[in-house]
């Protein structure tokens, strides 16, 4: 299989600004990708984002090295480091770990501003919905059902099967006139044959295009995410509603095919991200690291 379609290009970035203070590092070692950010006095200095292979530790190491290089720093300049994410315990260089929910909550306030009240982390394996107070503490959270695991990976696979780059699939899915009857909203593994099956001819009257296949797949993922987000605050009677602003983080946050569909169902627009929303977890970890050296 041609693998490249499902993968986002790896990125390295540095603000280029001069910075003072004490640089700290936060890394988010996810199941699919790894981010390392360097922050100093609450400002983002540099980051690196890459896909991880079988070795979470090595991937985290590489991410850190790349971020350091971009920032023009060496290992010794980093005062402390926190790791979060699935593979956090493999990040040997980290001085401490933190769980993802807290990190995404903290990071979201940085990435989306203090108005954010709900964070939907659409990751490679899991969807997490986090409800925040108006200060930086987590109020409640929900994690997707086990039977809904792997949705982000599922989208990658669809991109690979259709040979369409992952950066384009979201927009293309939105150009479908109407979402076709969705494929299974249960499991990503049921999704591939079903969405690809839309291409089957000879029974249906309508003919479906690749965009329709994408639309069906995105709908599946969006609907599943709604199931998790909605659990945060169901009303006694009525549709799902969220109090306060919503921010999307994680890999699928960059996929408008998913996020726009969620927004449409919830009847709201998500907050714009000031930074790459995939960095949220790592930023949260770095903010915790800053607190480690500077307890409030």
């Amino acid at each position: 299989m041609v693998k490249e379609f499902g993968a986002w290009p790896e990125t390295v970035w540095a603000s280029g600004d001069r910075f003072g203070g004490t640089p700290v590092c936060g890394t988010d070692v996810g199941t699919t990708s790894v981010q390392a950010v360097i922050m100093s006095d609450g400002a983002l200095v540099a980051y690196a984002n890459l896909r991880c292979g079988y070795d979470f530790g090595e991937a985290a190491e590489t991410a850190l090295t790349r971020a350091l290089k971009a920032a023009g720093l060496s290992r010794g300049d980093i005062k402390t480091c926190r790791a979060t994410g699935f593979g956090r315990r493999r990040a040997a260089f980290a001085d401490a770990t933190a769980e993802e929910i807290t990190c995404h909550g903290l990071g979201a306030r940085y990435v989306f501003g203090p108005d954010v009240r709900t964070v939907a982390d659409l990751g490679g394996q899991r969807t997490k919905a986090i409800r925040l107070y108006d200060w930086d503490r987590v109020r409640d959270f929900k994690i997707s059902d086990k039977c809904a695991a792997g949705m982000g990976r599922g989208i990658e696979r669809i991109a690979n099967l259709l040979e369409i780059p992952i950066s384009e699939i979201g927009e293309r899915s939105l150009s479908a006139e109407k979402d076709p009857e969705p494929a299974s909203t249960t499991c990503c593994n049921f999704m591939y044959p079903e969405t690809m099956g839309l291409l089957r001819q000879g029974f249906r009257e309508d003919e479906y295009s690749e965009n329709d296949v994408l639309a069906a797949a995105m709908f599946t993922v969006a609907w599943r995410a709604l199931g998790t987000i909605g659990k945060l605050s169901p009303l006694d009677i009525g549709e799902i509603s969220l109090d306060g602003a919503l921010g999307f983080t994680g890999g699928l946050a960059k996929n408008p095919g998913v996020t726009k569909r969620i927004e449409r169902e919830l009847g709201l627009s998500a907050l714009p991200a000031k930074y790459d929303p995939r960095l949220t977890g790592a930023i949260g970890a770095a903010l915790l690291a800053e607190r480690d050296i500077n307890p409030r």
Partner: protein
Amino acid sequence: MNKLQDILEHRHEYARDWKKRTGGRILGFYDVYFPEEVAYAAGVLPVRILAKHSEDFLTDRLMYGNCYCTRDMLNQFARGDYDYADGIVSVESCQWHYNAFDTTLIEKPELWSHYVFTPDYTDARTSKNVMRSELDLFRRKLGEWTGKEPGDEDLDRAIDVYNRNRQLLRRLYELRKFDGTPISGSEAMDTVLACQVMDKAEANELLEELLEETESRPPREDCVRLMLIGSETYDAALERIVESLGANVVIDDLDNGTGYIMRDVTPQRDRLMAIGMRYLLKPHSALKDNVWRRRPQRIWEFIEDWQADGVIIAKQIYCHPHGSDMYMVWNLLRERNVAFHTFERDTTLPYEETALGIEALINIIKPGMTRLRGQEV
């Protein structure tokens, strides 16, 4: 590891050894609604069939949509893990259990079997009559099978042993009511499970020893006290994950935990009626709690009595009774402002995957309890 935990781990060896020692017969049973006292009175050892993660070989041919537990129960019989069992007994409980029982009999027709109908509607005036007549039938069938129908003295002896067992286990649970509990959630769960797979008289002796030893232990320092509720669990893997995060499960609302140890048989002249009433009045599982919905109140009492800071709800995938109880339980917990975390579990319980939500729950209850590296398991 205490002695009971050791027996749990080597339960098949224990059962084989028991058989050799006593020459008695062994009955596998599927659900805690099985009136063990009657079997025990007949000199038969009731052994709970516990599921575990093992390779699936034939269940796809015979089952579809079952939870992994019941699939594995069938698998274990097919693989011969329970080759020492002389028979199996099912009660009216979850249909997947019934399915495991029924399908096992297709695979192993040589097993003796019986089915006890324990009413699903436990509260009717006539429910107890049905229960009594079912126990009477079970007693007669056991008599035909073993050659000796258990009499009143046998039943009295069994009731004594079983009540004693429940009392001792409750004493163990009692130790978990306060900060600095000497016993971990995993040890307590293992102990209750061990009692379900062994001769209760022997279990009671070991329990007394354990209690004595436990009460002299130094207190645990747990950052958070949690309650565990949800589908049946057959091991203490989840409790161990909680402990690795510095917290402790101090109370449960599980069929295998409080559902097994609460409520004694209150003696009366009609022994079968006495036993029957225990099963009609015990804390009901999600399946049997189907009309007046007493679970929320009971869960709340446990939370208060055992001072739980938060609740973990672990539902087995494809466990419908718990799938249908979630709304009610969530409502209760939200109403009373109890922090909780719900998750789905399956045959495997990957650590990081499971720990994430539990750690986040701990952080919600007590922020900053995030542990430093090296302290984790």
